[in-house]
């Protein structure tokens, strides 16, 4: 009961952070706190890392609301630890995020009522009132994340536990295997945003090769990538503007060629 309340509060705090400062909102930062509350830090680290990569390319782009990684991570981690499996956590995080996404869309639609309020404040000619408008949505955001999280963690743990024990081993094994493949979706989403020209494929393959053959970590690869990127930028800059534009226009054809 107390841990469910604490986790719900943590989800609520992260919710405020997600719409505000954006310092805590990632799975890798959310999961360990849930783990501490539940008394199993090790499992939560593993779950957090898996979810982090899985949701890597997910984010609000423009007016599109992404699946809600915060309640997904909080609920998934809590129930995953309760039922003793990282695979369960990943399996639960997806549907939870999807359900919570609907709540968030509702939230962002609801707070359009702030616009007339803001207009009224503008009429009042009082600058100092403007900032207060932030408090109401913060409260709503907190509740929108905290209440479902509490309900799911408090009432869900028993049900999930029974369900997991009833599941055949084959399904649990399959879910573990899936856990290692699913990050490809997060990465695929990132690639979708990043590969704007066909020629950019070679940098992806170069990074892959450095990691596979030289067994390098992310940090050294970043440092190697910096000078390469700098040289590429110089080379692109040298080219006259017109040729750059034609490359962009051809990009769809080129990408087909470079694929696979």
């Amino acid at each position, binding site marked *: 009961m107390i841990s469910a309340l604490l986790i719900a509060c943590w989800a609520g705090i992260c919710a405020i952070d997600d719409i505000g400062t954006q310092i805590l909102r990632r799975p890798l*930062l959310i999961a360990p706190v849930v783990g501490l509350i539940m008394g199993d830090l090790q499992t939560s680290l593993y779950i957090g890392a898996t979810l982090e990569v899985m949701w890597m390319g997910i984010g609000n782009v423009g007016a599109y609301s992404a699946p809600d990684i915060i309640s997904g991570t909080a609920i998934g981690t809590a129930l995953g630890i309760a039922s003793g499996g990282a695979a369960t956590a990943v399996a639960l995080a997806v549907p939870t995020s999807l359900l919570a996404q609907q709540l968030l869309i509702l939230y962002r639609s609801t707070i359009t009522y702030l616009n007339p309020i*803001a207009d009224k404040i503008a009429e009042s000619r009082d600058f100092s009132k403007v900032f207060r408008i932030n408090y109401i949505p913060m409260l709503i955001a907190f509740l929108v994340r905290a209440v479902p999280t509490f309900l799911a963690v408090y009432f869900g743990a028993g049900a999930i536990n029974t369900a997991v024990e009833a599941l055949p081993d084959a399904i649990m094994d399959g879910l573990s295997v899936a856990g290692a*493949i699913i990050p490809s979706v997060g990465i*695929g989403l990132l690639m979708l945003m990043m590969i704007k020209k066909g020629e950019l494929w070679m940098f992806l393959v170069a990074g892959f090769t450095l990691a596979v053959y030289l067994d390098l970590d992310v940090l050294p690869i*970043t440092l190697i990538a910096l000078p*390469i990127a700098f040289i590429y930028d110089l080379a692109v800059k040298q080219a006259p503007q017109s040729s750059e534009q034609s490359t962009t226009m051809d990009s769809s054809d080129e990408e087909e060629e470079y694929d696979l």
Partner: protein
Amino acid sequence: MSTEEMKITKHDLNRVFWRMQLLNVTNNFQSLQAIGFLSSFVPVLERLYEDQPKELKTKAMKRHLEFFNSHVNSDALILGIAAAIEETTDEEEKQTVTDVKTGLMGPLAGIGDSILKFTWLPICGSIGASLALNGSILGPIVMFLLYNVVNVSIKYYGIHLGYTKGMEMIEGTGGNILQRLSNIANIVGLMVVGALIASVVDVNVVAEISAGDNVIEFQEMFDQVMPGLFSLLITFAVYKILKKTNGKHAPLLILAIMVLSILLTALGVLGE
């Protein structure tokens, strides 16, 4: 703009910085970041409209309640630039402020996305994740610190830089500096993503064919061609599917991968 004429103080800009931490709170489907922009921008307006008639205060507030949307970190630069323009324009030229804001919000959102969301966050996330996978609590801590040193300083210096030399930075000589930064971030990001595929996507084929005495293990065979080849192929396939559907059905794809993995594991093709 000479220094002695500047009305807006460092302190005002710092107040904008603190207020912009909540800039996105009021983000809604109608005006997106508009209310947040105004609520962050108030210290500037307070300074500039101290002794102005009340109608002008209302006009100023209404002006910044118009539709606005950019990337949270790019907002800092735009807030700074808008402050500079507010200060240097007369009342009848105020349309410039809105024009500059709307002109900058799109491109700067793109640059903010490509540097922060698609390059720096994945780098921090994967450094943190690889530490965490080894069971180290340093993972989340390192990720938090790495990400926020950049996140917070872009916001802080963005406002100040935007105010002092924003426009020359964007239009300045020396080529389009921000565009080039975003190009460089793009390449670095892609190499990191390539490395990520190798380190986090893990496909293990356990199927084997026995031909007489010889047992052909697929995994071993493909590893000789290139280690991690399956990871690369799977990611390409996922990318292709996402591309066809414009990235809209990622959660569905995740569920599909779960179902397929369960099936293939049960059939003995895949394993841990």
